[in-house]
């Protein structure tokens, strides 16, 4: 969280001393956490996200039919309506929809996280360089960023995935490629203004190199803005992955991916309504949780921005 190094060495007072040295930062955090806890929506979001992370981590050990995510068939049990045995019913080959929805959480979270990590790495590096060096570096990087931002919606991701061949991995790659420009924009603008600050001047005066100034002095100040954007984006990354799965270029059978499940279930509407309904609900609640959390995080970490949803 901070660029300064600290030591847990007892002779230097350890934790107490660290807290003393970072007093203003620490106070700000405590105020932020207080604000966050007072917002009911953010707390609901936090609880939802934490429980879903728990589900994603532990799912494989407790779902009733883990084999249903890897291509098991139970034709005799096809299209069972929701019951105690199958809370979300069964699909066209008798797989337990509940087990598949639960195991789908894992895939969505993993992919969402990977997309964001890749996008943030590319976006922050390029945006940081553009803002820091300015001049032609800035021009080239930002023009490319603008072009990428001009691509309509999930269109480019659709084209890339179709070209590379369907599958979770390619969908992930395509979404990462289309996702970085937002971060580049965010970071570039902030670095551009931070470049002229006194502390950067000071760091330069004591001989810090470009990389050190950028990564150790400027970027840590942008962390909260990046975290806020990422917390809202992860939900949308999950939605976009599901959208590609729904169109048919994302996850393929028998991978239990929510969007693909909605698409398959759709063929059996209106009779077997449960097949499409439950994966969609899971998707909605996951993204809703992340958005509520992100909304609260923005109030905490980025109090100046008033454009909340």
């Amino acid at each position, binding site marked *: 969280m901070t660029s300064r190094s600290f030591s847990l060495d007892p002779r230097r007072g350890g934790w107490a001393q660290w807290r003393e040295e970072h007093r203003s930062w620490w106070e700000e955090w405590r105020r932020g956490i207080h604000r966050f806890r007072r917002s009911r929506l953010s707390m609901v979001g936090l609880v939802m996200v934490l429980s879903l992370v728990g589900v994603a981590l532990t799912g494989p050990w407790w779902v009733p039919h883990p084999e249903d995510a890897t291509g098991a068939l139970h034709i005799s049990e096809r299209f069972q309506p929701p019951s105690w045995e199958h809370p979300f019913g069964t699909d066209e080959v008798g797989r337990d929809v509940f087990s598949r929805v639960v195991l789908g959480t894992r895939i969505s979270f993993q992919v969402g996280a990977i997309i964001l990590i890749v996008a943030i790495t590319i976006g922050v590096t390029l945006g940081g360089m553009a803002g820091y060096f300015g001049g032609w570096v800035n021009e080239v990087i930002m023009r490319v960023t603008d072009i990428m931002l001009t691509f309509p919606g999930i*269109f480019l991701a659709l084209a890339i995935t179709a070209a590379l061949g369907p599958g979770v991995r390619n969908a992930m790659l395509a979404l990462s490629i289309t996702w970085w420009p937002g971060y580049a924009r965010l970071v570039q603008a902030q670095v551009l203004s931070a470049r002229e600050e006194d502390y950067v001047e000071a760091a330069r005066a004591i001989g810090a190199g470009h990389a050190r100034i950028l990564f150790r002095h400027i970027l840590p100040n942008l962390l909260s803005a990046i975290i806020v954007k990422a917390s809202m984006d992860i*939900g949308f990354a999950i939605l976009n992955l599901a959208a590609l799965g*729904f*169109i048919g270029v994302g996850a393929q059978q028998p991978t239990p991916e*929510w969007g693909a499940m909605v698409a398959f279930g759709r063929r059996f509407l*209106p009779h077997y309504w449960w097949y499409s309904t439950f994966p969609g609900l899971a998707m909605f609640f996951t993204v809703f949780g992340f958005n509520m959390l992100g909304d609260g995080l923005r109030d905490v970490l980025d109090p100046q921005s008033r454009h909340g949803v």
Partner: protein
Amino acid sequence: MHLRYYILRRLLLIVPVLVGLSLVTFTVARLVPGDPVKLAAGPRASPEEIQRLREAFGLDQPLPVQYLQYMRGVLQGDLGRSMMNGRPVTTDLRRYFPATLELVLVSMVLAVVLGIPGAVVAAVYRDRWPDQLSRVLALGSISMPVFWLAIMLQLLFAQYLRVLPVSGRFDARVPYPETITGMLILDTLLRGDWTSFRIALRHLLLPAVCQSLLALALTTRFLRSDILDVLQRDFVRMARANGIPERIILFKYVLKNALIATVSMLGFLFGYSLGGSVLIETVFDWPGIGLYAMNSALTLDFQPIMGITLFVGLLFTLVNLATDLLYGLLDPRIRYG
């Protein structure tokens, strides 16, 4: 006159953007591991036939030559031909675009008509239950997997209640109305054909509601916070001190000032939605450019994809330029640099 230079400069900047867009899509098109020509020729084509087809599409040339040939065509208004249906891409765009435009326009109207009163109510009842409700609804709307919502609405209104058609733009049992602009709602109104108008409107309702959700949520919440901002300004206090009724302050002075930023956001969303309606068009079988794009991508038919990308990219940039100009018109303090 700075404005003229500003417009000229922005128009000139479109050129590198379009070149960039075309380069990216061209690269993506050439990533295809399979052979699109073989796919298009069908499984029983002989090698000679495939070769002939390859030459017909110019795909036997080196890549830079292919690109330059393509761009020469683009400058002459030729976006190439679809390998799947053999029609020129421009013909298809002309056929499918009005459907998308109609869908997006109506969804924007919905967002404005419902969003502005929603925002006013939320701002007036700040932090009380109407505001909290609108916050939850807005967060819920942007979290909604729109393709799933579309399916659920289809299920409810078209299949269970049977009050609205399932999909498509018009009833197949009734003669298709003659088109003027291609936007059925407008065309039937212009001709005074009320029966067809009702049929078209009933088909449009569910897709437009789904398409408007994001714009509606953003309009309501952004406008709300802008209204609250404007309410803090001195001129409002002044007006109150002068005894001007709160209602007049709110609707005549505050709303006018607060709407400026919303207009620019709606402009952006409009441009964005023109290419972003792929999912809704897929679910409702709405014959617009989103559905066209999806079908082209799934069959690896890359001429239409490049054509659509360039077309939508151009529209998007033009709409953004128009929004920026409108912004200056609404707020004379804005100076173009």
